């Protein structure tokens, strides 16, 4: 693929990244930004929603530990999911490295997007200081203006993160998959072990304070294992 073709093909996906990035905190928080949704949408944009769903499920298990409490710093899964979904859907179905590379690319994007949210929040604070005298005078125009600037900047942030991540990581992911040296059995087992570890840790964190939650988890695990054996 030429750079021009790559540039043109990632523009619409970057718009999707902008929308799901905005959804994470600013508007409307309907959870399009959860990786299960954003990765599936990313995969669908490339024509393989099923591949997007697979990486989305892996990332969702990991995202269970993300609790976006107040001012805490956390991963922004919207753009990360879109990038992961596109990369996963762009690999050949039979490639051994497709899933681990898509997961790597998504998590790397999450580091960058998480940082970009802090930049936007600092920029919002700067704008709030700039408009302080008008806001302190109760100017409805200044209040609306600050809000709209923040929303616009967050939309731009989501677009830029997705665009840059795809521009850099999409070609890189193809190069890595082309020289991937571990077989499909071990590659998938590694990814599954990572997702299971983080998910189990997250479930413990979320539920251990509730009475009998540990026993309920073990009860469910037993039932799930039986169902698995019956399949």
């Amino acid at each position, binding site marked *: 693929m030429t750079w021009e073709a790559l540039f043109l093909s990632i523009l619409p996906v970057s718009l999707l990244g902008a929308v799901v990035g905005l959804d994470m905190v600013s508007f409307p928080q309907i959870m399009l930004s959860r990786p299960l949704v954003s990765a599936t949408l990313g995969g669908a944009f490339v024509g393989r929603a099923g591949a997007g769903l697979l990486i989305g499920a892996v990332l969702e298990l990991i*995202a269970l530990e993300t609790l976006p409490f107040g001012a805490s710093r956390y991963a922004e899964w919207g753009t990360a999911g879109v990038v992961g979904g596109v990369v996963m859907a762009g690999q050949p179905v039979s490639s051994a490295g497709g899933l*681990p590379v898509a997961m790597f690319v998504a998590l790397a994007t999450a580091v960058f997007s998480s940082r970009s949210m802090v930049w936007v*929040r600092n920029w919002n604070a700067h704008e709030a200081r700039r408009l302080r005298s008008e806001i302190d005078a109760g100017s409805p125009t200044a209040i609306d203006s600050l809000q709209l600037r*923040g*929303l616009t900047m967050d939309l731009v942030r989501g677009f830029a993160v997705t665009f840059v991540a795809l521009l850099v990581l999409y070609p890189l992911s193809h190069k890595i998959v082309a020289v991937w040296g571990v077989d499909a059995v071990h590659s998938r087992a590694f990814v*599954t072990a990572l997702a299971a570890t983080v998910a189990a840790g997250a479930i413990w964190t979320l539920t251990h304070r509730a009475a009998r939650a540990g026993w309920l988890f073990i009860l469910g695990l037993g039932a799930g294992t039986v169902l698995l054996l019956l399949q």
Partner: protein
Amino acid sequence: MTEPESRATQSARRDGGTPAPVGARAVAASFIRLFAVQGSWNYETMVGNGIAFSMKPLLRNLPEERYHAALARQARYFNAHPYLAGVAVGSLARGELDGEDPVRVERYRTALCGPLGSVGDQLVWAGWLPLCSLMALAAFALGAGPLVVVCIFLGAYNAGHIALRAWGLRVGLRRGLRVAPALANPLFREGPAALARISAVLAGLILPLALQRIIGPGRALAGGVAVVAVIGAVILARFGARATGWRAALGLLSIFVLYSVAR
């Protein structure tokens, strides 16, 4: 976003007279704006500007001077869970409209911050969101396609999300500065623990099935994966305060990718 002021409003402002009651259109406008309440979130005023932004349609009928004073008050520092910000917007708007003493409004505003943050965090971020994720993952584990999984997640989650936002604004507007007892609702006290128990049993049930679908050809190593997951989860639970799981996963994955490329 700004709507033209009605003649009645402008007249009321000029006269400094009693404002008209809040109309359905103003409530609807405020409700829609609440979805963007975190639009200018920052580390200094947090969601403060968003509170004033969402409250603006409700305060339109105040006399000019009181309108600006109320907006200035409401744009200051505020922190709350975004889905419960409607409680603050509704109750504080009612206080402003009823002509409560500004000092009392400000004191009440400060007092609302903590409960609206902690109650929402526990109920939504630590309860409802993970439960809806697990419901969608259960559908994935049982072989559902992309559309079904996404619809289950978005449908279930947003049924609760939108109902909570609507309840917050309604109860705030109805009770004004006497909204605190509404936060003692059994849903807020018992809900998080009940959701955690349902999540625990659902997580146990779906984890093996979801992992079975993800692992694909790697199922030959399923036993090893289970052992690694148990040990890893115990380590994460033990040292979770110092290391986030996703960053640790990225570190390990980076090593695995390098190994695979170098091989």
